[in-house]
């Protein structure tokens, strides 16, 4: 039924991508029309939108403000989207389709901002900076998913692992008064849950989605229990020191990118480092090749002497470490205290980012930042006094996730043995 039925039905894939090409193009044209009709025509013709390009409180790496005539900018964006849509229908962008969809989506957001902030000024750099912060747990969650699913284990327990790590990070960080120990304990907690998931789904072969759900339930209950029993009673147990932000010399002086990526907290650096490590390890090392072969065709991998079971255990445990980092970000990287259910479904959105990013670290980061941007929109717009209620605005990431999953952006390549327990004969 979909493009993901890989090898067997090659012919069908091209048929469907023909359909998808047209649907994608039509959606892009609709976006263009929307930008023109809803945004451009409602803006006063002489209005000007000012985008501030330096995040607040930053002294190095300043950049001049962008001053844009609102209507002209909107019309140009509409025309660009229209051209992309037409080209998509006629010729298609092939492998770059997902990227182009992301681009049109960015046009849309940019138009939305230009419209909302016409006649006012908006700190775009601040928004990008917060988008990157919002993107950290999503992207790390996606990395965790990539690690597990490339080896053939579906992991929807990432959300629960993140929650556990956030709670332990806060509790242990407060007890030992050390953010680093908080991080260590948080990651350990997540790895323990990952081990449980591995045992349940690899050893006992229970349905991986059920196993993941059970772990999510367990983690929700456990963190709420500890939180009510200790964290809320003794406030000093919920006050961990945070990993403060530090500058990377030289790189932080790059305009725009410097303040956003190189003058921030450890977790953003971890995200960038993991991006490079994973991309190289997965696609250019023997280790990565083995792992992917276990996810694609475990039986063939087994005949070639690769230990399928061991590889899967390792992949899930590594995924647990990364999910732990994502969770610890909340308490010792961003908020500084634990609240019940504070991860708010970011683990699941991470999985959507993984799918959007084609099970690829680079793609996952792009998708993560896109989701992060949608997240930061809600908070920023309420400050601008937007007419759209913030509750409805905040549904945007969830809606986008659903659209992504609906295959509008294409599922790309799902590891063939994803979710299938391996039975040695």
């Amino acid at each position, binding site marked *: 039924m*979909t493009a993901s039925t890989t090898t067997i039905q090659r012919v069908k894939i091209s048929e469907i991508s023909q359909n998808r090409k047209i649907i994608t193009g039509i959606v892009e044209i609709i976006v263009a029309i929307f930008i023109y009709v809803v945004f451009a025509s409602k803006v006063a013709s002489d209005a000007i939108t000012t985008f501030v390009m330096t995040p607040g409180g930053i002294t190095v790496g300043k950049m001049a403000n962008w001053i844009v005539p609102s209507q002209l900018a909107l019309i140009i964006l509409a025309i660009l989207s229209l051209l992309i849509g037409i080209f998509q229908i006629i010729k298609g962008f092939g492998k770059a389709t997902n990227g182009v969809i992301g681009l049109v989506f960015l046009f849309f957001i940019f138009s939305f901002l230009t419209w909302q902030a016409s006649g006012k000024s908006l700190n775009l750099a601040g928004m990008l900076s917060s988008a990157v912060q919002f993107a950290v747990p999503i992207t790390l969650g996606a990395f965790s998913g990539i690690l597990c699913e490339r080896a053939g284990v579906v992991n929807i327990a990432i959300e629960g692992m993140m929650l556990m790590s956030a709670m332990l990070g806060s509790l242990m960080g407060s007890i030992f008064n050390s953010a680093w120990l908080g991080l260590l304990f948080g990651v350990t907690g997540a790895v323990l849950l990952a081990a449980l998931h591995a045992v349940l789904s690899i050893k006992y072969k229970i349905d991986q989605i059920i196993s993941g759900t059970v772990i999510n339930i*367990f983690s929700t209950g456990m963190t709420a229990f500890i939180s009510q029993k200790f964290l809320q009673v003794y406030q000093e147990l919920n006050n961990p020191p945070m990993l403060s932000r530090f500058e990377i010399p030289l790189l932080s002086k790059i305009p725009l990118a410097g303040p956003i990526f190189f003058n921030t907290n450890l977790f953003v650096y971890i995200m960038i480092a993991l991006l490079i490590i994973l991309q190289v390890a997965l696609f250019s090392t023997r280790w990565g090749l083995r792992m992917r072969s276990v996810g694609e065709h475990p039986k063939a991998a087994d005949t070639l002497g690769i230990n399928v079971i061991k590889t899967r255990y390792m992949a899930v445990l590594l995924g647990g470490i990364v999910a732990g980092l994502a969770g610890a970000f909340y308490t010792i990287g961003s908020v500084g205290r634990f609240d019940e259910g504070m991860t708010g479904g970011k683990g699941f959105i991470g999985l959507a980012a993984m799918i959007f990013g084609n099970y690829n670290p680079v793609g996952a980061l792009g998708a993560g930042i896109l989701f992060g941007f949608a997240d930061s929109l809600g908070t920023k717009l309420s400050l601008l006094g937007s007419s759209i209620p913030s509750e409805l605005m905040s549904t945007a990431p969830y809606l986008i996730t659903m659209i992504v999953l609906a*295959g509008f952006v294409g599922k790309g390549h799902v590891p063939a043995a994803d979710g299938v327990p391996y039975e040695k004969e």
Partner: protein
Amino acid sequence: MDKNENEKQDFGKLVLQEVTGESPKAKIQKRSVWQVIQIPFLAILTGLIIGAILIVATSQTVWTAFAESIWKGFSTAGKELGTAYWALAEGSLGNIVTQIKAVSSGDDAAIRAAFNPFLESLVQSTPYIFAGLACALGFRAGLFNIGVEGQLFMGGIFATYVGYSITGLPPYIHAPLAFLAGALGGAVWGMIPGLLKATTGGHEVINCIMMNYIAYRLTAFLLTGPMTRPSVAGMPLSPIIEKSAEIPQFFPSPIRFHLGFFIALGFAFLVWWILFKTTWGLNLRVVGANTRAAKYAGLNITKTTIIGMAMSGALAGMAGANEVLAVNHSMATSLSSGYGFDSIALALLGNSHPVGVILAAMLFGVLKNGATRMMVVSKIPIDIVTIIQALILIFVAAPPIIRAIYRLKAPKKEVATAVTLSGWGRNK
């Protein structure tokens, strides 16, 4: 006629066979009652034991007692645990001594007061029955409806709206109308992931979870905006529904036992009848058990998936409508305390069979109602119930663990579970 006589069996056995998913005609491998219930029973027992360990391990009085002497530590732990689980039992089933006294005194008010804890447990288990049925029906169709929570909220919203906006209807029209509106709300919310799965192959689990979050936000928006109660404008609270829309309660306040419990039982019967006695139910189960076979048999999988999700959502919506119309009489953002996740546990525990779901729902109602009392008496957070439920779920889903703990022999052939799910982004 003779044959029919032979096939008549006592009702209990039939139910058990249904619960275990065995066809009544396959009598070759008879299993005793103990064999059928051993895994759920031991799973519940083990869950409670681990919960007890957790209660003791997080209690400061126990730790300080252990610091004094080991003996004192153990006796304090025992005392602490006794108080906690006694509170759990008393809060959920009532105090047997008071009950006997009340019955022998013959005083109406006293009897009602004595049995109120148990009736309240039934009140608590009512939404569990609806939600558990929703999930069970989904499982039977091979669908993992983890969106019960969101569907429940939409059911609540729809029921509330019909409940307060329409006036002047007689109760026998207004209440059913509001209830069905709730079912409709849930059905719509459930149908969307079904539609997406059937047409695009997007996995229902993530879509359902996203729909949950959208439902929360939408509810928060509606209850503070268009549907807010004017007297408390800004608070997330809806107007109170009309008297005519209420599902009647049987006894004067504070006893909240209401007709909804029996409606739930009625729907459980209906679900059982649809699943096991109609062609359509058979189709649903075939699609759930083996999509490929269903395809070759010429069944319409797209339609079954969509209707299956819609029906599952409708049942979840009824849970929300029930809470609004029978218990709260208005809608708040705190409508659900995690029924969505609990419903999965219920369906798994009851092996996706309506009778199993009812029993599991009663257990959860008792646990939840008792936990409220336990929280008051022993200061143990109510989330202990969630933890115990998750543990039970792990053990039910992975029987080898229970067998390893209690050194049970594995059956020759594993009983097929009613849960059949498709993998990730991939069609079966």
